[in-house]
């Protein structure tokens, strides 16, 4: 950095290219475009922690789904008679077919895990607040599409869970007054879940992956407009608050990716069916419902909310509301302070919400009987209470802790504190610190 730049936009790390790259760049400035997006010319808050890895991980998870999905689509047969057998053929006969299917199935699970961490990171650090509301919305739309895409994908193997999951979920639309029955008939393209629905789902499952990819690009575009939030939740004030994305955050993301891939490989190679339902290895039978229908784990909290309301239409509305309420969170949260670090009461409410969602997940996976019913209803009530009542009130009542002047000063103070804590140890063991030089 030359001189004393006062504003972040005064700092530039543009690529100056010669030769072939320069020739291309002059005609299509693709290299600076990349450099501005994830390179040295994208200034990023210097204090991001590992929770900021999950956006990049989600992008990679999407790419893995698309690549493996394209291969699976080339071997899959979208017919009632052929679907189940074609999946078994992929597992047994197609070269590495088992690998593609296990990566795709477990990849979907992990994609949701990543996106949920990403979403709760957002709720904790208040990233959805001004001026990132649209960024938050794009993320939520992506989540909605992911749920639809995952559900449709789950139907494709045409096992018992596929068939009955499709039956139950499409019947939800029958709850809509007046047009419900006609709507369900239209969705099915027949008098029950069958050929027309299977083929339609196959087509849309493939399409939606690319719609999600397009929305992800908009999501990143919106992110770059006001740049990443950070654990302190305060704005970038100057060049001293940032680091270039490359090499600092590319390296950090790469490290996170390494950890992620190790977990992914452990799942795929050692416990590939741990997250799946064994009933889906039974071919679809329209004359027999499995004893216990449950969705995949990532939809269990929503499933619990659906079942909490003892009314068909009410349950469906609660399910929709559970997702839609997230869209208005930027306005329900009345606090001007973003990060929960400086919000002592909200911080506790956040963790209670996390516990509540886990509880909902547990209830969603349990049979709908006995004590599980009232617990599910309480947990559902608390979910809405958090967003609709507590969030607006706490923002008004709570007195936040003082915010640091800038990211840079907070980082420097943090380092000073760390050094003070380390100092006696450094003196005590000088030999082990440099043992491998």
């Amino acid at each position, binding site marked *: 950095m030359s001189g004393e730049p006062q504003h972040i936009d005064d700092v530039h790390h543009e690529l100056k290219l010669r030769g072939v790259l320069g020739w291309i760049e002059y005609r299509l400035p693709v290299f600076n475009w990349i450099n501005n997006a994830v390179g040295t010319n994208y200034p990023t808050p210097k204090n991001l922690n590992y929770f900021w890895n999950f956006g990049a991980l989600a992008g990679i998870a999407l790419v893995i789904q698309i*690549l493996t999905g394209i291969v699976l689509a080339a071997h899959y047969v979208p017919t009632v008679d052929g679907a189940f057998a074609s999946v078994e053929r992929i597992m*047994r*006969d*197609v*070269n590495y077919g088992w*690998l593609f299917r296990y990566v795709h199935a477990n990849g979907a699970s992990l994609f949701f895990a990543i996106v949920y961490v990403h979403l709760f990171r957002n709720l904790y650090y208040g990233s959805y607040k001004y001026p990132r509301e649209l960024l938050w919305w794009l993320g939520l739309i992506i989540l909605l599409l992911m749920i639809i895409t995952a559900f449709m994908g789950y139907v494709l193997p045409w096992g018992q869970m596929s068939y009955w999951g499709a039956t139950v979920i499409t019947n939800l639309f029958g709850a809509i007054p007046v047009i419900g029955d006609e709507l369900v008939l239209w969705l099915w393209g027949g008098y029950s879940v069958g050929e027309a629905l299977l083929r339609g789902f196959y087509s849309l499952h493939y399409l939606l992956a690319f719609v999600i990819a397009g929305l992800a690009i908009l999501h990143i575009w919106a992110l770059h407009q006001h740049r990443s939030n950070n654990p302190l939740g305060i704005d970038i004030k100057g060049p001293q608050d940032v680091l270039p994305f490359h090499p600092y955050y590319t390296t950090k993301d*790469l490290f996170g990716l390494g950890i992620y891939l190790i977990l992914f490989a452990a799942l795929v190679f050692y416990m590939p069916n741990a997250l799946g339902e064994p009933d889906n290895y039974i071919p679809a039978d329209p004359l027999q419902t499995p004893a216990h229908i449950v969705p995949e784990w990532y939809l269990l909290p929503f499933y619990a909310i659906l079942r909490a309301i003892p009314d068909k239409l009410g349950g469906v509305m609660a399910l929709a509301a559970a997702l839609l309420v997230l869209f208005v969170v930027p306005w329900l949260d009345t606090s001007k302070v973003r990060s929960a670090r400086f919000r002592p009461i909200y911080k506790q409410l956040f963790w209670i919400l996390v516990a509540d969602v886990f509880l909902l997940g547990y209830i969603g996976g349990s049979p709908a009987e006995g004590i599980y019913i009232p617990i599910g209803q309480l947990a559902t009530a608390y979910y809405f209470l958090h967003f609709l009542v507590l969030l607006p009130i706490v923002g008004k009542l709570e007195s936040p802790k003082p915010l640091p002047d800038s990211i840079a000063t907070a980082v420097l103070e943090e380092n000073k504190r760390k050094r003070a804590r380390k100092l006696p140890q450094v003196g005590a063991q000088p030999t082990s610190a440099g043992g491998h030089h």
Partner: protein
Amino acid sequence: MTAEPKGDDGTRRDFIYIATGAFATVGAGIATWPFIDQMNPAADVLALASLEVDISGIQPGHALTVKWRGKPVFIRHRTPDEVQQARAVNVADLRDPVRDEDRVQQAEWLIVVGICTHLGCIPLGVKETDPKGDFDGYFCPCHGSHYDSSARVRKGPAPRNLEVPAYEFLTPTLVKIG
């Protein structure tokens, strides 16, 4: 950030940088293989790669087409006359010089893949009513290649004789192709 002590062969950071890059490259390379291999014939396709045909019903002078690996195979029961004709040819004059004796296991049975070696059309000559070309074998209507009674190319654009598949006689009337 404190600088690493500089040795003759660069810094520790250089080593980590190169090791990471090498590891990522090898990993990406290995991950590419399943994407390529999934397009190769699957196990069930390979399992159906051979075909057993009962040839007891084919009279001398007649032929039969069977489908093997998605391609037509011509099985011809040759008359002594046809065999005689095929063996009287001067091999040195042929475009693709092979002796008839080397193209058949039993003189009366000619088994070839029925795909013209020019551009992959199916030659005529199996049915009695088909044109058999100028050399009493097979005739490809697409671009006019003529094959003789040993299915060797004699005239037209085809570069090679009709291919002889791997086959064996399990019994005198049962042949296994592939």
